[in-house]
């Protein structure tokens, strides 16, 4: 209807162009249509680069399609087969192996995410407590401390790859030459390599925790501390009953951000350890990459991707619920 109206108008315009004032000729261009016109390029772009791939990958996750083997073929639907395989319900030997691998990779991811976020939280909050006062050079110190956060993850990983080397690495120089400890082959030993990833990530993202903690600390009203001072409260008492409850919501938000981010770590694992030794640092994103672009099991990779998504959404929701609870109380 709208279209036919439009063409009619256009024809009218051609016939009587110049006769009618602009006000009449553009009567069809209401505020709503105008805003829609302005928005449409962005919406089209989003549709093609985000929404369509999302829906397409969801469709692929229910097929056994492969991007190289089955190029040009119509994907065959296999129902929840790929999901079953990823969750360890497969029947063939290969399928069973995939199930075991996915479980292992989730465990590895946990072994990375948990210590990383905890150490970053403790270190970042501690640094924020130290920096939450006025002193000479505070601004400069803050800027310097924020530098790691501004670097590209790949570059950070490259730095650490050199620093962790057994022959010329500065870390081993400190451990061995200065403190007389053993040289540690950080990147090639099972059980230790994962800590190399933790180390690099802590170095890079502790400033973020510090920044958020500082924001929280500086938002605690000063008069509460003064009231506590007059009430003869101890330093621990003030920390436990004023500082901590007041900054917890913000800290949890920082934890949420860092958890989601650490969960999808890829660059550092790729550069630092390449997933090794023996797959011991193959975090989920890394494993997903291998399935998708080494084995080219596109259907299975899509399914694993969606499982990852569901897990992180569930985790995030737990945290968000906790944050809301606390926010409601205070």
């Amino acid at each position, binding site marked *: 209807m709208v279209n036919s109206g439009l063409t009619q108008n256009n024809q009218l315009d051609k016939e009587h162009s110049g006769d009618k004032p602009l006000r009449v000729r553009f009567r069809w261009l209401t505020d709503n249509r105008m805003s829609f016109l302005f928005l449409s390029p962005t919406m089209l772009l989003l549709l093609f680069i985000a929404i369509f791939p999302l829906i397409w990958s969801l469709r692929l996750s229910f097929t056994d399609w492969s991007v190289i083997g089955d190029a040009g073929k119509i994907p065959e639907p296999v129902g929840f087969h790929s999901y079953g395989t990823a969750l360890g319900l497969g029947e063939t030997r290969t399928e069973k192996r995939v199930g075991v691998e996915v479980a292992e990779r989730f465990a590895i991811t946990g072994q990375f995410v948990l210590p990383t976020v905890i150490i970053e939280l403790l270190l970042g909050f501690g640094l924020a407590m130290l920096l939450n006062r006025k002193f000479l050079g505070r601004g400069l110190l803050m800027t310097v401390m924020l530098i790691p956060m501004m670097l590209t993850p790949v570059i950070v990983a490259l730095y650490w790859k050199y620093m962790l080397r057994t022959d010329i690495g500065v870390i081993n120089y400190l451990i061995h030459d200065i403190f007389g400890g053993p040289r540690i082959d950080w990147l090639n030993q099972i059980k230790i390599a994962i800590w190399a990833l933790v180390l690099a990530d802590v170095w890079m993202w502790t400033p973020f925790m510090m920044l958020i903690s500082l924001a929280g600390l500086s938002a605690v*009203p000063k*008069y*509460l501390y*003064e*009231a*506590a*001072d*007059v*009430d*003869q*409260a*101890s330093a621990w*008492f003030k920390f436990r*009953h*004023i500082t901590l*409850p*007041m900054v917890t919501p913000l800290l949890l938000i920082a934890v949420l951000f860092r958890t989601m981010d650490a969960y999808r770590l890829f660059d550092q694992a790729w550069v630092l350890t390449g997933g090794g030794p023996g797959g011991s640092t193959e975090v989920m994103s890394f494993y997903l990459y291998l399935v998708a672009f080494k084995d080219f099991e596109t259907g299975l990779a899509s399914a694993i991707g969606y499982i990852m998504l569901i897990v992180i959404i569930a985790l995030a929701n737990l945290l968000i619920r906790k944050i809301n609870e606390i926010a409601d*109380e*205070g």
Partner: protein
Amino acid sequence: MSHLKLENITKCFGSLVALDNINLEVHDQEFMVVLGPTGAGKTTTLRCAAGLEKPDEGLVHMDREVINRVSPPERDMAFVFQNYALYPRKTVYQNIAFPLEARKFTKAQKDEAIQRITQLLRIDHLQDRLPRQLSGGEQQRVALARAMVRQPRLFLMDEPLTNLDFKLRSQMRGELKRIQRELAATFFYVTNDQLEALSLGDRIAVLDHGELQQTGPPQEVYENPANLFVAGFIGSTRMNFMDCSYDPDSQTIVGRDGVWRLSPKEGAGQAIVANGNTEHLVFGIRPEDIAISTTDEGDLAGKVYVAEPLGDRIVYDIQVGQDMIKIKTSPTTMLGIGKQIKLKVNIDRAHIFDKNSTKAIQA
């Protein structure tokens, strides 16, 4: 004993002089009120007493002991903050118990002390609530309870009634006075409300721009303001000020452009001459000390400019020459706008100020 003495206290924040050589004493069991407009330095005075602010110069004494270097917790004072400073995530009970935690009270002792003070302040039914679940008046009483649950040497109160509505404020005024008497406590209280100061204080100290203007019992400060600022600040309807001069020959005070002439009260003339400035004076008279003349005779002649009916009274603005003055009348006195009237002045209650020094000239 609780005797606080501030001696020559000066405090600057950058280039701003917040307190300029303040001398003030709070006697044992006294209700001392510091009164002044916003930015006068009232809160800073209190914070210097509490130790939350260090004076740049001067000494803080407590019972003849200099306590400049004594930290706030060791001063054993209680501070009621203007915004109450209740701990937001603690219940009323926990808030009030907070000062007792540090003193290692047993549970039974705590319960007893809290029970006593919450009953006194009538908040014992609110003990399990969080501060945000309380009204302003209730929060204020919790803040008071937290201060009063122990027996500090001195209570410092920073405008505790400012955030309350008018009705609650007048109710709490009475309660505060009662509690202070009941506990035989020493109060050092800050407010910008002259009514509060007059009704609560055993003595009041008027502060402006970091300088102490006058100290004394409320009635004395009201009756004999030391300068133009105090005269203008205290009183529910501001004192009327009119520029004038003194004519030693006729021994009369002469209004601007000579529109009125009044004989001052006994001794005032000599005092003015002795002060040395007869040209630039200010004549001050409170609205309640001016009456409408019932005859044609009067001290001042003027024209009714505007009427403000206030229920229990009507305040009229009267134009006298170039000056505008306010008078209070009974609610039944009806004067039409523009009406010419004569006024009688109670000259014994009038004040003369030196306009240059702003100081009162005492007869």
